[in-house]
């Protein structure tokens, strides 16, 4: 099997159409959303959704819980910004720089963390996230201006003028749909099956002859790269960045989002991302102290609603299907 088929880019006898349907649904959904919520906010939401999707790949599909994913988001932000200030202020190039930079770091750190077991994996990633915050706010202060933050400034390029709200929104929507498409292809490919098998029983996959370390590492790399991509996009339209994007206390955000939406499926990541952001907006504007609400929601989910929102929806659909079968049988008897 060649690499393209393995990654799902060449259909191996399977109908590739449905993905396009999904993308249309998502596009319409987000466009409709602009009628209710301000476009600027939705742009933020979409970036967060990209970030959450990257986390879901790692946690929902592969089963690795990282308590330090915010590192890659922040790295993407800072490398893009620094690139655009010091090297070249072309928006696409700085986006590329941020994405690649984050990918390289994910590749290197991945070599260390991916062989660790659950507990250590979660914590060591948290440690790296803390180191990242420290490096950006203290060590590289000369470059990054530490906790003062830096202004972000990108040029327009062709028709891509990011000070225009509509262009920004469309660009980010397309980016999100692109990420969705790529991840959908990846997770429904043999690679996706493989990582899901690793989540279920890694030992058995090793016995089948696969190098699970390699696949875990690749997944970690992809997750980190996409998170950095999200960070890079963020710098395109935001005026100012500071080390708060790397705040280790924010590591819980994608975890909570994925749990709320339902881990292990991309719709769950998007739904969770949206729900989380909307909730955060609402809570922070009504209460001075509101994180405890997130705590309570986390507790409720961990004990009773493990499969989140999409899990709840699927449970209802299953129940309705069962009812339909019963009605059918009754109809046949009646």
């Amino acid at each position, binding site marked *: 099997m060649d690499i393209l088929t393995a990654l799902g880019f060449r259909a191996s006898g399977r109908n590739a159409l449905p993905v396009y349907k999904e993308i249309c649904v998502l596009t319409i959904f987000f466009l409709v959303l602009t009628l209710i919520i301000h476009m600027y906010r939705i742009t933020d939401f979409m970036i967060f959704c990209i970030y959450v999707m990257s986390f879901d790949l790692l*946690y929902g599909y592969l089963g690795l*819980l990282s*308590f330090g994913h915010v590192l890659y988001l922040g790295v993407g932000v800072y490398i893009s910004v620094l690139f655009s200030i010091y090297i070249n202020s072309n928006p696409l190039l700085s986006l590329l720089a941020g994405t690649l930079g984050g990918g390289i770091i994910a590749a290197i750190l991945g070599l*260390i963390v991916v*062989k*660790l*077991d*659950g*507990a*250590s994996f*979660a*914590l*060591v990633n*948290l*440690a*790296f996230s*803390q*180191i990242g915050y*420290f*490096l950006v706010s*203290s*060590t590289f202060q000369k470059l990054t201006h530490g906790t003062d933050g830096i202004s972000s400034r990108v040029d327009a390029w062709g028709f891509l003028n990011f000070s225009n709200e509509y262009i920004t929104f469309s660009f980010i929507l397309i980016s999100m749909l692109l990420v969705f498409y790529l991840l959908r292809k990846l997770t429904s490919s043999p690679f996706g099956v493989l990582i899901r098998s690793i989540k279920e029983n890694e030992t058995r996959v090793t016995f089948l002859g696969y190098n699970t370390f390699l696949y875990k590492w690749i997944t970690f790399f992809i997750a980190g790269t996409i998170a950095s991509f999200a960070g890079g996009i963020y710098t395109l339209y935001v005026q100012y960045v500071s080390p708060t994007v790397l705040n*280790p*206390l924010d590591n*819980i955000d994608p*975890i909570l989002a994925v*749990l709320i939406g339902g881990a292990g499926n991309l719709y769950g990541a998007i739904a969770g991302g949206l729900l989380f952001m909307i909730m955060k907006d609402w809570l922070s504007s009504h209460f001075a*102290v*509101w*994180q*405890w609400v*997130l*705590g*309570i929601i*986390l*507790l409720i*989910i*961990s*004990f009773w609603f*493990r499969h989140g929102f999409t899990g709840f929806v699927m449970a209802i659909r299953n129940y309705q299907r069962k009812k339909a079968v019963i009605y059918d049988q009754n109809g046949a008897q009646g």
Partner: protein
Amino acid sequence: MVESIVYGFTLGAILYLFSIGLSLTFGTMKIINFAHAMAYTLGVYFFITFLRLFPGAFCISTFLAVLCMIPVAYIVERLIIRRLYGESLDYAIIATYAVLLIGTDFIKFVWGNVPQQVSDPVGLSISIFNFIIPVYRLIIIAVAVILFVGLNILLRTTIIGKIVIAALEDAEGVRCLGVNVSKHFSIVFIFGTLLAVLGGILYAPISAADPYMWLNILLIAFAVVILGGMGNLNGTFVSAFVLGITMAITGRFWSQAADTIVFVIMALVLIFRRRVA
């Protein structure tokens, strides 16, 4: 330089007190308990409140604060930790982190966000070989050493200590003997939590108290526990002091890197270790 080393030992002592509970909880119940950090912080705030009520009464305030934390620890264990036994590690981490979020906000709500200062209760320094060392720091170190010895004795002589040693190795085997590990673990959990509270209170005069004071120590404590070996209390003792001294000495030459050096060491050890933690 000597002051730095003494400070390093002091840090090590506090780290040791804090890490025992974490190590035991993970070693026997396979749960990473983020809520431990909440107990640490809450205990300090109780202490500060009592100290305001009874100015100058350091020991009594410590005692009262520890007393207040017993029901808190019991509730966390009963409602959260026990329910997490046997669950996948992920949910344990997430649920205990949730408790941490709730507890931190509770502290912010009751006491506010502003850092609180506590003054050195002993206020004396002694002079050894021309170096001036605060007596208080020596007391802290002494407490840790006494605890280390006492803990070893307790573990070897009491039945619950033996249950802990056995459960650290093979909790399932202990259960198959008819011993309810979870129920006995309650006591262990409360004990570990109170030690962390003690550690926090002892450290308060050296650093200020704020609702997020747990962030730094928690991460370093994880490094201590990972390096010392999950559930290995003697290893934790050694790694706590090693890391404490490393932090203090690094802090002397490059003040901002003190925390980071710990994680660099942890990363290096993890890379080169044959056996995965």
